[in-house]
């Protein structure tokens, strides 16, 4: 088995508060891995540790074969990241954002140009190419942010609630983009609040109060908790939560 992400007893404490409590899991190459949990369950903290944005208090983790304690810069070269907050530059044009992030990951002008042309065509963004990102509708921005996050062909892409506040049609299109990325061999690690989206994942983990309470394919989880859909599974697990928001 080819694991792109491994976590063993990964823990993060802020003072006396344990945000992430000894979580262990593996993610296979090319998998779409859903990372579920209520607000404050520790999803984002766990993801930030894997991305090298936050140092783990204890436990071991590897991403793309590199240690998240000691080789964070190497980890960063091999991942893409799209955060909850929209994180492209509003005051740069669409192509300028792409150029910036392409350049940061070591692509040259020529490669960037060729790939930008292709991307603009695929996204049907040719009209918007020269527009400032600030003037795009939210759905467009999210699609662009995702495309930028995988522009340099990372091994893994981390998506932190990528579809927050987006209409159902755009969400649907967004998930099509995720599938396409997975087909191209990019492992997708995604957190979400939408339980219908959880159904699209190959496997999901559900976090409650900093621990992983369940981890399996949506089908197996539904069978195990004898639930109609993922929403019911989630309700059953999340009800155990002791934490207040």
């Amino acid at each position, binding site marked *: 088995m080819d694991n792109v992400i491994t976590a063993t007893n990964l823990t993060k404490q802020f003072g006396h508060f344990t945000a992430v409590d000894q979580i262990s899991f593996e993610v296979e190459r090319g998998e779409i891995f859903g990372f579920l949990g209520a607000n404050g369950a520790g999803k984002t903290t766990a993801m930030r540790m894997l991305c*090298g944005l936050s140092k783990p208090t204890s436990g071991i983790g590897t991403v793309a074969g590199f240690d998240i304690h000691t080789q964070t*810069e190497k980890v960063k070269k091999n991942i893409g990241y799209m955060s909850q907050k*929209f*994180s*492209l530059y509003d005051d*740069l044009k669409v192509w300028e954002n792409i150029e910036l992030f392409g*350049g*940061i*990951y070591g692509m040259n002008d020529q490669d960037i140009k060729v790939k930008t042309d292709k991307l603009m065509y695929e996204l049907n963004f040719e009209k918007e190419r020269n527009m400032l990102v600030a003037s795009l509708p939210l759905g467009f921005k999210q699609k662009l942010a995702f495309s930028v996050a995988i522009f340099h062909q990372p091994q893994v892409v981390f998506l932190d609630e990528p579809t927050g506040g987006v209409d159902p049609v755009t969400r649907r299109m967004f998930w099509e983009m995720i599938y396409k990325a997975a087909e191209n061999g990019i492992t997708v690690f995604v957190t979400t609040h939408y339980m219908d989206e959880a159904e699209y994942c190959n496997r999901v983990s559900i976090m409650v109060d900093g621990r992983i309470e369940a981890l399996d394919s949506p089908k197996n989880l539904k069978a195990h908790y004898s639930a109609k859909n993922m929403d019911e599974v989630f309700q059953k697990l999340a009800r155990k939560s002791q934490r207040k928001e």
Partner: protein
Amino acid sequence: MLKYLLRKEFRQIKRNAFLPRLIFAFPLMVLLVFPWAASYEIKNLNISIVDNDQSSFSKALTQKIISSNYFRLTDYSVSYSAALKSIEAQKSDIILQIPANFEKNIINAQGAKVMLSANAVNGMKGGIAMTYLVSIINEFNASLIKDLMPLSKSTTNISTIQIDQQYRFNQNLNYRVFMVPALMVMILSLLCGFLPAVSIVFEKELGTIEQMNVSPVPKVLFILAKLIPFWVIGLIVINIGFVVAWAVYGLVPAGHFYTIYFFTIIYILTVSGLGLIISNFAQSLQQAMFIIFFFMLVFIMLSGLYTPIDSMPEWAKWVAAFNPLKYFMEVMRAVYLKGSDILQLWKQLLALIAFSIFFNIIAVISYRKSS
């Protein structure tokens, strides 16, 4: 990689609605307004004269005072108490009382006394009014001695010491000559210290900095990309300063421009390094603004812009020794007024280099890509 980061910074600055205007408007504002407002030269002091003599001498003295350009006669009071009233009413700043028999006593070589009383509510103004008036009276005195000497009975040997004053480097004691180069330093400090810091904290607030932190961009490059645009801006600003100084105040450095450019480049690195350190610790724009405001206020007060550092108490001198503004201000004044070159300013050069290395190392260390 730096190339792409720089493109980003320049594009953002260019598109900013406020920044490009600030870069031109701020130096113009400061250089056109401050030298006139922040000067110790006082004109149009109001004087009340109580002339109890009403002689040709007393009239001549009055005439001399009024024609001096510094004083404006508010009233000829009948008595000292009346003059005092006009001071109380804020109408006049200083009283000159000429005693009866003023002329007679002078001619008889008995010596005459006049009395000056200044309103010292504003101590500075009162002091200056007093100094001006004393020097006018001394001049009057000197011309009288010259006129009366041949006639005087007891002239045998009055040896007078003549003091020949000469002010070097700023012959007319023009405050603007002194202020303008120092103001350029203040402008550079504010623009190049504030703006890079604001730009980083702004990215923190927007969350875009996270996208940088999760990328393989080395911290040094990220910081360098923030600094380089402000080098360019700083050099534009200093050139605006040169033009205004020349066009409005007729000031041209006595030394070389390249000495100033050389120091400017090092100085910008110093202040923007300081700004970057602050931005690394500040979580919000307000926080950053207040911290920078604190530092700038102390730095400007203790820079020698208004009050000479030599006249400060010992502890303030020590604080000032750690003030990069002070050194660059010394450089600017020395180059503008005395024409000093880099070799003569080696102390300031060493200090500024030390500051810039120190600040920028701390800035890189304190910038954290992870928490």
